[in-house]
């Protein structure tokens, strides 16, 4: 008798998701799917609002990566009202963005994936969490907390608060950086860099001991996408979009304003989240990955010294070809943290960083604007159209998690087929399925957090609709 296994919600990711694993009669997996169940509806919600409010509305999408939405919205508003931000304002925005990536990646590596890496996939779920890490390796947990705080403090310094900052506006930013603030951030750079390098050493140590898992676990062939500088080096804040194929060869390099010429979205009836793909190749041949693994594969080099050397080592993992193993998202993530910390130092050393030329008040109103940046989880696109009064008539948001939708679902399928044999489903396997999703660090929606909600429940359901097994974690 075939059966369907449901894992809902996937633990340690933001928003709501469900995994169903459809079994064959012989106890092997027929196919596994990742369902995104939450319909956000934020685009509709924003229509009718003035475009210049978007930097303050869209961060409400999420409490984890609000800065990415804040800055992408500001870039789209710059474009829409025809007010390019002055160079000092762009430096300050990039500085805030670095703070966002540092805190988000730091939190993911040490607190979400860290339990898997430090304690093992098969550790008791009661201890395989951030508290388990704090008990087992308090010195690492303290460094991780300090790293996240460093990123949060950059955001707070510039935006006045750590979540939902009030900083970027159409045409620039509303606050210049003071010398004392610059010095306070600089004082934290060395210890943050030490913590990030510790993360890389943890990952390498783990990779050395778990090569079998890494090479069995969701090894996928796909394209890769990232924003790059003119020399194809990494840029998380601004530049053209580069798309490479599964061999790492450049397919396209285009200005973000032309994204609709290159990217289309496929719809499946089992998920609210669409599946973006490279238009010329069609779906699913044109699927690609974004985020840390996508970026490290799509760029030729990383410009800062320590991260640049680490990126060269990353490139050797598959002899110069793209690194396909999903679990190397974690390695790529920590290389990016190192890059961001080094970039913080570069930005703070730039003579323009203390300039008060931070707002362009001239307008050349276009009525349409596109803002793109590399959010922690991948390429984030905000596209607005407004009428002559500035009221939004159309809003399109392609969030980073969406680009990775195909990859996450394929990763779940791959892991399920690898680890479920003979119909036997164990806790360690379930966590591997979830870890396949977690590696992408998906952020599915903003969330509510009231006490008493959302226990973990796994149901095994027969084709007749009968629940044959229920596993729950409160």
């Amino acid at each position, binding site marked *: 008798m075939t059966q369907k296994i449901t894992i809902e*919600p996937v*633990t*340690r*990711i*933001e928003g709501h998701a469900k995994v169903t694993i459809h079994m064959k009669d012989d106890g092997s997996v027929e196919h596994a799917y990742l369902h995104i169940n939450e319909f956000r*509806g934020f685009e509709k*919600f924003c229509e009718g609002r003035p475009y210049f409010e978007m930097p303050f509305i869209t961060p*409400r999408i999420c*409490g*984890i990566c609000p800065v990415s939405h804040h800055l992408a919205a500001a870039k789209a508003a710059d474009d829409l009202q025809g007010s390019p931000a002055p160079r000092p304002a762009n430096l300050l925005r990039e500085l805030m963005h670095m703070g966002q990536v540092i805190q988000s990646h730091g*939190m993911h590596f040490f*607190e*979400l994936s860290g*339990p898997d890496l430090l304690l093992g996939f098969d550790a008791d*779920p*009661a*201890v395989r*969490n*951030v*508290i*388990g890490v*704090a*008990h087992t390796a*308090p010195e690492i*947990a*303290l460094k*991780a*907390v300090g790293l*996240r*705080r460093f990123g*949060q403090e950059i955001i707070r310094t510039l935006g006045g*608060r750590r*979540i*939902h900052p*009030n900083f970027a506006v159409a045409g620039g930013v509303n606050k210049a950086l003071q010398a004392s603030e610059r010095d306070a951030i600089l004082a934290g750079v060395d210890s943050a860099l030490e913590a990030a390098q510790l993360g890389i050493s943890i990952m390498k140590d783990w990779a050395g001991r778990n090569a079998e898992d890494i090479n069995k676990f969701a090894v996928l062939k796909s394209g890769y996408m990232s924003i790059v500088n003119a020399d194809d080096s990494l840029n998380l804040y601004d530049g053209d979009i580069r798309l490479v194929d599964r061999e790492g060869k450049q397919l396209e390099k285009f200005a973000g304003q032309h994204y609709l010429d290159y990217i289309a979205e496929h719809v499946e009836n089992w998920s609210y989240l669409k599946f973006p793909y490279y238009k010329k190749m069609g779906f699913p041949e044109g699927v690609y990955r974004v985020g840390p693994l996508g970026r490290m594969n799509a760029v030729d080099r990383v410009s800062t010294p320590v991260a640049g050397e680490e990126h060269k080592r990353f490139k050797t993992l598959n002899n110069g070809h793209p690194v396909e193993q999903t679990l190397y998202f974690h390695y790529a993530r920590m290389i990016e943290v190192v890059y961001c910390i080094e970039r913080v130092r570069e930005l703070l050393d730039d003579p323009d960083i203390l300039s008060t030329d931070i707002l362009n008040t001239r307008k050349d109103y276009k009525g349409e604007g596109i803002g793109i940046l590399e959010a922690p989880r991948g390429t984030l696109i905000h596209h607005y159209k407004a009428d002559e009064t500035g009221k939004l008539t159309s809003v399109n948001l392609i969030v980073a998690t969406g680009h990775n939708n195909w990859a996450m679902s394929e990763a779940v399928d791959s892991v399920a087929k690898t680890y479920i044999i003979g119909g036997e489903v164990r806790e360690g396997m379930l966590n591997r399925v979830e870890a396949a999703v977690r590696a992408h660090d998906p952020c599915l929606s*903003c*969330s*509510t*957090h*009231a*006490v*008493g*909600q*959302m*226990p*973990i429940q796994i149901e095994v359901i027969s084709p007749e609709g009968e629940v044959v097994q229920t596993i729950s*974690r*409160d």
Partner: protein
Amino acid sequence: MNTLFIGYGNPDRQDDGVAWHVLSGIAKNLGLDVSSSWEEPLPSAPKADFRFELQLTPEMAGDLTAYDRVCFVDAHTGKIPENVQMVDVTPEYQTSPFTHHLTPEMLLSMCSSLYNKAPEAILISVRGYEFGFETKLSPFTASLVSEAVERARGWFESIEANHRFLKMSLVV
């Protein structure tokens, strides 16, 4: 005795943000001038600080160790029978369905693990009914705010009274 009132939730999702209304009520009750925006910092009273966050996060553990007592304020749903619940909270090593959402017990556990001390703590939670994209509380949850404020204020006054009594006893 230093006390921290820390509320958390998402005020853009209706009743999920009830904690801000409770904190605001306690602060006003203590004679403080409170902004109408949850995004502005809350003022401090003698021996009491107020803090509102969208969620509890690990780096707050260090901040909490600066206090003798902490009152967590949140919304609740589900099987909790009371409309306004007040319970003691102790450090507890819990499974976390959503690690981005730390529980007060887990945060206190982090205080103990990382800093070898944790404040005494309670959790006051208020039943939520509506969690849509709105900033206004549902009528029933709104009606529970004053009870939550009174219970928090009563807790704060009783611990302060106990502390004064203990201090006098030591002097005598």
